[in-house]
């Protein structure tokens, strides 16, 4: 199965019943698959007029209680940024798949990159927090996409599947489970204010058409959902809650794999370069070289770095000029070294082995 197809299948298995999208390489197969499948299962496939409309339709559909997603790549991702901020402010669960390609601008439509990692985190304006997963295999395209829906619903926050052209277009054998875990949205208790913090700072969801009479606005709003856009205290309380509900649940959301926890030289990776690292570790066969592989990249699991007690250096191979490497460096006193690869090719295991050996 192809990575993009697995992504679509994972979404359908998780109960996604609305897809709004606009064609763009290298994500288009997701839309094509959804166009074939959705009508057969009573879902909706909407090809919108652009990416701004795609994410808007997804947010609209999500407010009816439906699990909704869109998929895009670099330029389309940039176009979605404003409404992603809207989804954050209005606490709208939705899944956005970004099959990353070379940029800036039109860049390399058919080659892989990981240049949007900071954009998914900070691309929209204002202070915010989001969740992002990064699959490293076709199997994970299926599993992490399904998981993204649960995270989005649990925390009422846009959740990103930060794939790349390599994983999206790769074909591998995958094991399709009979069913995936589906943790549905917790509905708002009647009589509760729609944007009151609720448990874990996440309010229950007042889906449209159920008599809640909820007003949803991107303006700074109070617990009733009414605009209150000039009071500094209302704004601070709201934005701190929106950020805090995600950052405060970092340990609960975190998902990563550790290889050789006693290692001195440790690779940190996510997405496709994880495959190069895994190969390098196998070829090296040296317990002094370890690996922290992130499946959830945002919120960044800072505490995972501390698990490598003997680490003398962290090496971060990425398909960009250094994005997550900065985040890693913020959380440790140990030197953190970027290994950049841009142009569309994956790091060769040979290059990673040479780098690691240089620090041993």
């Amino acid at each position, binding site marked *: 199965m192809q990575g993009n197809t697995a992504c679509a299948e994972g979404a359908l298995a998780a109960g996604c*019943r*609305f897809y*709004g999208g606009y064609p763009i390489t290298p994500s288009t197969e997701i839309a094509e698959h959804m166009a074939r499948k959705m009508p057969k299962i009573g879902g*909706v496939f*909407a090809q*919108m*007029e*652009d990416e*701004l*409309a*795609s994410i*808007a*339709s*997804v*947010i*609209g*559909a*999500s*407010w*009816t209680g*439906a699990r*909704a997603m869109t998929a895009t790549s670099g330029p389309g991702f940039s176009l979605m940024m*404003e*409404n992603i901020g*809207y989804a954050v402010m209005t606490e709208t669960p939705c899944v956005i798949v970004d099959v990353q390609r070379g940029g800036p601008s039109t860049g390399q439509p058919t080659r892989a990159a990981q240049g949007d990692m900071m954009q998914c985190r900070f691309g929209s304006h204002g202070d915010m927090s989001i969740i992002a997963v990064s699959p490293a295999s076709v199997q994970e395209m299926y599993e992490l996409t399904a998981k993204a829906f649960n995270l989005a619903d649990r925390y009422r926050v846009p959740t990103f599947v930060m794939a790349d052209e390599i994983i999206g277009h790769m074909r591998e054998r995958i094991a399709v489970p009979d069913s995936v875990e589906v943790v549905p949205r917790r509905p708002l208790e009647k009589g509760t204010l729609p944007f009151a913090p609720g448990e874990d700072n996440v309010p229950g969801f*007042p889906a*449209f*058409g*159920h*008599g*809640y*009479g*909820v*007003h*949803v*606005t*991107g*303006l700074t709003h109070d617990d009733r959902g*009414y*605009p209150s856009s000039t009071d500094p205290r209302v704004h601070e309380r709201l934005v701190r809650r929106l950020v805090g509900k995600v950052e405060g649940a970092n340990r609960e959301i975190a998902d990563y794999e550790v290889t050789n926890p006693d290692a001195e030289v440790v690779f940190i990776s996510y997405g496709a370069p994880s495959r190069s690292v895994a190969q390098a570790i196998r070829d090296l066969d040296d317990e002094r070289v370890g690996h922290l592989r992130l499946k959830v990249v945002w919120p960044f699991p800072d505490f995972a770095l501390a698990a490598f007690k003997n680490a003398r250096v962290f090496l971060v191979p990425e398909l960009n000029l250094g994005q997550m490497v900065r985040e890693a460096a913020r959380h440790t006193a140990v030197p953190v070294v970027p290994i950049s690869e841009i142009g569309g090719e994956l790091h060769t295991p040979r290059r990673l082995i040479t780098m690691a050996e240089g620090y041993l």
Partner: protein
Amino acid sequence: MNFQDWLRADRLPHIYCTGCGNGTVINCTLNAVNQMGWTPEETVFVSGIGCSSRAPGYIITDSLHTTHGRAIPFATGVKLARPDLHVVVFTGDGDLAAIGGNHFIHGCRRNIDLTVICMNNYIYGMTGGQGSPCTPLGAYSTTTPYGCDEAPFDLASLAVAAGANYVSRWTSYHVQELTRAVKAGLETPGFSLIEAVVQCPTGYGRRNKLREAQDMIAWMRDHAVLLKKWRRMDEEGVPHDPATFPVGEFVRRNLPAMGVPK
């Protein structure tokens, strides 16, 4: 139920300026919705950004106050996911015709079952009276200080050309006709556009010798020409006064539509 029962009484008075026509259009819309016999539970209001788009916040139903220009795609998502809900969009001329122009024509083309009420005040009101795609030639605004030199959009004709099933234009002076038009839009499956020309004494009237709301209402009354008469003038080759504009029902038809409940 009276149409005023649809308002969130705890949020009134609203933020509109003295004499703003938007409040009148809200009345007419709610009156029409109320006459349909719909309940607040099955009705959703969606809007973009601008003065007009604040309207859903004053209505007791579920409502989405979205981003600038994007009300129609948000509403499309709601409608396609829950075709049984009645979805009404409030928008303004800047929101609909400038930043949202593409969504507008594609909404008409899809003929998605929405009723879109555009409060056309000829300018951007909320940001203080800048020129919009509907600012008449020669009119003054903060960004057309020497008179507007761009031709305006004719929103109603645009919607007809793009494939909407129901299109009409009235003004906030024509409260009865406007109510009837909104009701006709709500009844027609597919995309309905009701363009309501409204007075903005603060942002438009003040700079165009129509300082008071009453002056603007009188101006609309005197410059709106019934569409029948307008077309007869066309046939007879009688030129139109450039300050006048046609009002009435532009189209009511039954082209294939999307999102209509089965």
